[in-house]
């Protein structure tokens, strides 16, 4: 056997064959790369033209001077960033530390965090309920969750106003039952914004949670029960850790759009309770301060990215710790 395989082929031709194989492989590899870039091309083009380029424009604008009637004047200036933290006194031109914009940022972060937490608390049991239905009825539940998307967010927010305003459904009911003598002010408060965010973004929490809970192998749950775990511990030690990708995805999908929300705070906060989104819109609108609007957008983006980096770092650390 071995003799027959070795003897008829001289060493020379062996080397030649090896060369041919290697070059064929290299050609295939190149072709493979070409195809891959070819396929990714359109997506890269769209991201480049409509994502990166605008971002660069914003970055440049944030370091320019504001034009008196909107737009920008060419000339380097850090005024936009200074304005974020300091206020120039009208009389002596002194810079003084001012917290007005910081407050808006803080409110946005708190509201977005609150909305995320409440979405998670409400969304998890909902998703768990959906995932534990018989397979045949699960699609119906998913359909019901996506039902709100059939109506424009503006309309939904407007109907929310009708429900929570002083003469709205809730207050009418409370007055009718005699629980309160005067209507409770809900509309145009931070609470109203939080409620609106919760309502608008709840499906974005439920759907990824459902996706990961639906894939959850309930044999792990049974094994945990068999190993003396109570219901609460099964939830904490098995279900939540295994659903973690869904939890993370849901939280990001709620937090990121919530922190930049525009319509909800505009309508339910009545312009009195601003969020970052409104502040930015204002700069490109009536305030006519494009550089400041650009700077605010970039600061918002930086905040989100810092939060993400911190998250990724901490989860990487934790998984390393549990390995060691």
């Amino acid at each position, binding site marked *: 056997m071995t003799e027959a395989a070795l003897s008829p082929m001289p060493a020379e031709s062996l080397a030649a064959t090896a060369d041919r194989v290697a070059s064929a492989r290299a050609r295939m590899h190149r072709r493979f790369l070409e195809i891959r870039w070819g396929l990714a091309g359109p997506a890269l083009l769209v991201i480049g033209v409509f994502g990166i380029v605008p971002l660069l424009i914003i970055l440049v604008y944030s370091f320019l001077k504001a034009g008196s009637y909107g737009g920008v004047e060419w000339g380097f200036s850090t005024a936009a960033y200074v304005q974020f933290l300091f206020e120039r006194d009208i009389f002596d031109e002194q810079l003084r530390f001012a917290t007005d914009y910081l407050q808006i940022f803080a409110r946005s972060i708190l509201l977005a965090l609150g909305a995320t937490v409440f979405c998670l608390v409400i969304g998890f049991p909902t998703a768990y309920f959906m995932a534990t239905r018989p397979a045949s009825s699960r699609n119906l539940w998913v359909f019901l969750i996506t039902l709100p998307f059939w109506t424009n967010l503006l309309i939904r927010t407007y109907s929310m106003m009708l429900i929570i305003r002083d003469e709205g459904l809730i207050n009418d009911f409370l007055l009718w039952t005699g629980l309160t003598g005067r209507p409770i002010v809900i509309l145009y408060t931070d609470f109203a914004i939080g409620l609106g965010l919760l309502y608008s973004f709840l499906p974005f929490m439920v759907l990824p949670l459902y996706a990961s809970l639906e894939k959850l192998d309930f*044999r792990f749950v049974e*094994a945990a029960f*068999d*190993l003396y775990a109570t219901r609460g511990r099964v939830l904490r030690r098995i279900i939540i850790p295994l659903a973690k990708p869904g939890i993370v995805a849901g939280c990001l999908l709620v937090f990121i759009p919530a922190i930049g929300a525009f319509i909800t705070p505009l309508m339910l906060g009545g312009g009195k309770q601003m969020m970052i989104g409104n502040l930015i819109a204002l700069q490109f609108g009536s305030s006519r301060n494009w550089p400041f609007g650009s700077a605010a957008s970039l600061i918002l983006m930086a905040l989100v990215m810092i939060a993400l980096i911190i998250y990724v770092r901490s989860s990487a650390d934790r998984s390393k710790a549990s390995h060691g």
Partner: protein
Amino acid sequence: MAESAAVEARSVTKTFGVAPDLVRALDDVSVAIEENEFFTLLGPSGCGKTTLLRLIAGLELPNSGDILLAGRSVVHLPPHERPVNTVFQSYALFPHMSVAQNIAFGLEMRGLARDEIARTVGEMLTLVKMQGLDARRPGQLSGGQQQRVALARALANHPKVLLLDEPLSALDLKLRQGMRGELKSLQRRTGITFVFVTHDQEEALTMSDRIAVMDRGRVQQLGTPLDIYERPVNKFVADFIGDTNFLEATALGEEGGFVRCRCAGGFELLVGGIPPAPGATVTVALRPEKIVLHPGGAHGTVTQAVYVGTDTNYVVQLSVKTDLGVRVQNAVDGRARFAVGEHVGIEVPPGAARLLKD
């Protein structure tokens, strides 16, 4: 205490689904499993083995009947309150925990002290020969290693009863044979009652103290491996365990504690079992290896000979309709003792064949 069985199922019935698609997974099943016993549930796929195990573990509720552990009814106890642990068919190792964390899980849930948990985990790792792999995730282990971890995770709790659902079925043959011995010796050393599920008859025969052969939700026969193999009570058991010839025969009458029967081809044999009325037509089960062939006889003709190493399997035609499988050990030089076309005589030692109920 000693007289109550470690595990007992009393007239347990379990159904799944509703009317047209109703499945009777268990149909009036009663078994009593003794302490320190290696008890095996054996049967074909879908016969209800896993269901019975899940009922004992508390992962499923029976429609009727009772489950007792050490004489105490546990039907209404949730799984985490039963002193029973399971090695699942799929192992069900927690993928987000290391080997050590998996083994420690049950101990943590029972609120044991940290150093005791660490000590037990160490012991278990040694027991299943997995030292040094404690930091691995289940996804980084081979099938055999996962099986050991599943075993260690269950054994760490020192349960009164260990339920094992086809723990060896995912392993390759070599590993499976090795693990059989290990499991058996582990059971002897720990003195834990094992309820072992398998559909592999060889596994059941070699490892068990007693076997319950199940089919279609019912226990067909319950007994020692010897009982089951030598004295099957019905056609299903005889057919499921080992190879068997089923012969139509006429009962002639009792003789020295056996029943004399006449089969096709005219040869007569003495059969063990409860004597039927003389003249009745009966079914006789006869193991191929119990038959002795004589050269030059007139009972039948060899029509087929298949070499299987130590033995040769012959098919002997008794009549136009009746074939008999016979297994004969080969000569010392490995050659078959009979040739195709040869006429042979058949001899069956008294009691080697069994009368079957149906």
